[in-house]
């Protein structure tokens, strides 16, 4: 793989970039704090979660700036954001938000440990914040936001043409019918397996929406990622019979209002989520090599039930085999695997750019690795709890400070230490954590030996790299990439709009070839409702 040339940087922080960087630090501080405080520190009797979180933060801090520069040597953050919006990849609303937070938590961890100052490695800091902002603005182009919280905990990033296909092709279900039972079992197994495959981390799950379906119903789009043999070495063999790496299930909920779909994909609804309120279901697969969403087992109702039952069985088998494999791991292996799940959460930026390197994303930075001796369970829990509740020494603001969510009786601070303005006086700061480039170093996990499961079948590493470099999907090409819902609103009768919708409708049960002029009422007619 060709690497970008690394040279000593003469970059300096402009006043404009300084202000914008601190704006992002503050915005992400408040939102990440809220997301953490409504959950408490996640612990597990299987995985050393707080210690691996700290390890992953520091690993991300040291390696992400260089991995992002590699990606940017091939393409722009906007290109990757546009691609991620049109297909289902690991670049979800969850991991897209964490693109900034994991790096910043690594920075703050090192500041609290006395190994870094807030004015160190400012070029890296600006690089990561700027990449994340530009990626998210493109990915969430429909809502012009970078976080769900800005939409009062909603994420409606899919274009109408995709939503129409999901809406039209769903199979109606009623309480007690065979399809609903099979889907409920599949969803619970997939969620449980995703937690295990991701070493107790929720990054394999995504829920986005809600999307409005008439006056009283809403659609939530549920996704499960990295289920099959793929980037995670520990899924080799045990997940060989899982046929799809990513699965997407649009779910129609009757008489339900999702009042919260937060940045980590957790949802709350009124009335509460209850499978008896599910009114319709679909199933798709998709990834960075697909041209959109490919229906899975939706040819007939019977085929759909059978497909869900087969998937449920395959995931249960993979879950049980994987659990037995992990139960035999050493604590060190669990620590590393968990950390790598976190720090590889944005790896699909490299898959899309064609710069993915298994060793780079699945080995730890040497400096991060050196922290392992202090990362026992007690230190990990207490340090992480202090860090994520803004109680660490360097986080405290002056005594008059009040944050957005903390109560008055608690003197508190900001999760991420801002850059001090004084750096603009003499620009005497380090630019990069890796002035001579970055190389992967440490892993005590088994090597990746199995294939990569994609929408083009099972590929080896070379085939995957070649396919990633060559793939330039239709929706990314001009003029299509710039035809959004706002353009369609005024041009739906044009040939180009019709073509745009027909491309998205390929393979649809009810909308194939229907074009751009449909309303929801037309879709109901086509479904015979």
């Amino acid at each position, binding site marked *: 793989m060709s690497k970008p040339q690394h040279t000593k940087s003469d970059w300096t922080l402009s006043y404009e970039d300084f202000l914008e960087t601190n704006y992002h630090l503050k915005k992400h501080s408040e939102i990440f704090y809220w997301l953490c405080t409504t959950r*408490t520190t996640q612990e597990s*009797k*299987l995985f050393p979660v707080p210690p691996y979180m700290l390890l992953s933060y520091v690993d991300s801090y040291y390696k992400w700036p260089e991995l992002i520069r590699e990606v940017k040597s091939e393409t722009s953050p906007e290109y990757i954001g546009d691609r991620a919006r049109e297909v289902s990849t690991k670049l979800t609303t969850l991991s897209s938000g964490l693109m900034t937070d994991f790096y910043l938590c690594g920075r703050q961890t090192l500041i609290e440990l006395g190994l870094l100052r807030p004015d160190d490695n400012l070029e890296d800091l600006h690089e990561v914040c700027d990449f994340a902002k530009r990626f998210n603005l493109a990915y969430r182009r429909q809502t012009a936001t970078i976080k769900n919280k800005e939409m009062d905990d909603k994420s409606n990033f899919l274009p109408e043409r995709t939503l129409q296909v999901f809406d039209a092709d769903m199979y109606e279900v009623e309480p007690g019918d065979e399809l609903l039972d099979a889907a*409920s079992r599949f969803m*619970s197994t997939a969620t449980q*397996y995703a*937690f*295990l495959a991701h070493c107790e981390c929720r990054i394999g799950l995504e829920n986005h929406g809600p999307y409005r379906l008439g006056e009283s119903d809403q659609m939530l789009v549920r996704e499960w990622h990295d289920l099959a043999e793929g980037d995670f070495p520990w899924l080799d063999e045990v997940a060989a019979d899982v046929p799809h790496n990513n699965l997407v299930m649009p779910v129609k909920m009757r008489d339900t209002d999702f009042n919260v779909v937060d940045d980590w994909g957790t949802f709350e609804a009124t009335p509460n989520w209850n499978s008896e309120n599910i009114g319709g279901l679909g199933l798709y697969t998709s990834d960075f090599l697909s041209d959109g969403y490919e229906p899975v087992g939706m040819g007939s109702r019977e085929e759909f039930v059978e497909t869900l039952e087969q998937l449920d069985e395959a995931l249960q088998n993979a879950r049980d085999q994987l659990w037995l494999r*992990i139960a035999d791991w050493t604590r060190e292996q669990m620590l590393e695997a968990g950390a790598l799940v976190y720090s590889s959460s944005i790896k699909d930026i490299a898959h899309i750019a064609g710069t993915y390197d298994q060793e780079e994303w699945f080995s730890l930075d040497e400096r991060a690795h050196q922290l392992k001796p202090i990362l026992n369970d007690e230190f990990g829990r207490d340090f992480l709890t202090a860090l994520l509740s803004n109680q660490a020494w360097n986080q405290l603001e002056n005594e008059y400070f009040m944050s957005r969510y903390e109560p008055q009786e608690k003197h508190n601070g900001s999760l991420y230490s801002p850059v001090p303005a004084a750096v603009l006086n003499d620009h005497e700061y380090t630019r990069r954590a890796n002035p001579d480039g970055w190389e992967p170093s440490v892993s005590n996990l088994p090597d990746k030996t199995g294939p990569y499961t994609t929408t083009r079948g099972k590929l080896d590493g070379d085939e995957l790299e070649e396919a990633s470099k060559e793939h330039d999907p239709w929706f990314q090409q001009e003029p299509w990439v710039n035809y959004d819902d706002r353009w369609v609103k005024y041009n739906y009768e044009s040939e180009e709009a019709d073509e745009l919708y027909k491309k998205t409708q390929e393979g649809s049960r009810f909308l194939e070839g229907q074009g751009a002029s449909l309303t929801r009422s037309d879709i109901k007619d086509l479904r015979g409702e």
Partner: protein
Amino acid sequence: MTQTETQKEKIGEGDNVFSTDENIEGDLVRISTTGEVAEYMRNGVPDGLIALIDDSGGTLVAPIFDEFTGIICPSGTVRSHLGIISKENNVPCLMNAELDEIPDRVEVEYTADPRTTESYEDESKAVRANIWKIE
């Protein structure tokens, strides 16, 4: 005081993940090691068991989770991984539970209102579900 009331003593409370139509009574078993889970994998989980699970994660009991009648977890929140999985599997669950003792048999107020995100910002809106010892 009736005979029934004397046999049912409150010993704890927790945050309910979702509401059921009826409270649930069952034998209580504490699970905190992979060895205990492996044994249940080999021999099966007896009917009517309520699991007291020491951590709020979703992986320790992954292979046997949906075989329990109910879950009580002394840590985490309703938004923790264990809470998410209980909702998905329709297995009633109390998070952030506090118990004075660990009796052999309990009744759990899974009918209580679930804890909401809003109540984490305003504790006065929090509703706790009861746990009773059954003798």
